[in-house]
């Protein structure tokens, strides 16, 4: 990798960090953070640290989708008052993205970071494998917590309206 290309990406990441820290509007600030994460993952991929780079870019893209669905176009998801849940295109898209993300994490945990041959996976886990599993469980618990908060909010909003 050429140093000019590295610093080009570096300047983009620094500008994104400056926007994230200095902007007065929270939405632009979060957008700056996500751009910073995507730029950093591009840096990592070009510096041949592919494992964390791929994981990082997956999380950044997931964050971008969540930002788009929950903050930029919240009415598409119909997260208003409680009622009968209907499937729409955004919900189906969000479910597909979530399933792809989880399948990708499990796939990497099983194939990329396998322990040595003398010690199979169920018997003992390598440090990397433990880190992947902790990350997977954290992501899963985050998703469950977000769904619970949203449903509780929907129920309370419905109760207040009734």
């Amino acid at each position: 990798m050429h140093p000019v290309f590295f610093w080009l990406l570096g300047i983009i990441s620094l500008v994104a960090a400056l926007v994230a820290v200095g902007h007065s509007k929270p939405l632009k600030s979060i957008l700056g953070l996500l751009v910073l994460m995507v730029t950093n993952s591009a840096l990592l991929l070009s510096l041949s640290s592919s494992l964390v780079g791929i994981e990082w870019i997956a999380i950044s893209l997931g964050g971008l989708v969540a930002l788009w669905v929950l903050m930029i176009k919240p009415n598409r998801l119909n997260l208003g008052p409680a009622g009968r849940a209907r499937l729409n295109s955004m919900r189906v898209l969000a479910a597909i993205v979530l399933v792809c993300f989880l399948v990708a994490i499990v796939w990497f945990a099983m194939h990329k970071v396998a322990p040595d041959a003398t010690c199979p996976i169920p018997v003992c886990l390598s440090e990397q494998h433990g880190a992947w599993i902790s990350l997977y469980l954290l992501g899963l618990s985050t998703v469950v917590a977000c769904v619970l908060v949203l449903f509780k909010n929907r129920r309370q909003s419905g109760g207040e309206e009734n």
Partner: protein
Amino acid sequence: MIPYAHVLVLALLQFSLGLAGMLLRRSGIVVLVSALVMLNGILLILSVGAGSTFSVFKDHQTICQSAGLVVLAVMIALAAVGICILYTFNRFHKTVDLDEQDRMRH
């Protein structure tokens, strides 16, 4: 090939920007974002050390990669917990300004 010092400088600049944001801003969301910017800098150092480009860390690739993944997990947990706290505070007090957080004591 990129010298390791360049990566360190970039990561330290990101870390400094995040630290400045944490110290100077009052909005809760921006402070949370600043903390994540700081962790981005740390993660950049660890993850680049895990790559095969730099011979300094070549024997410690696994350690660096594991540490990078743990920092990534900490980032996710920080974001999730911080957003939940800010969401709850905003729901009851209609603001995310950190100067108003002393209301929790009363």
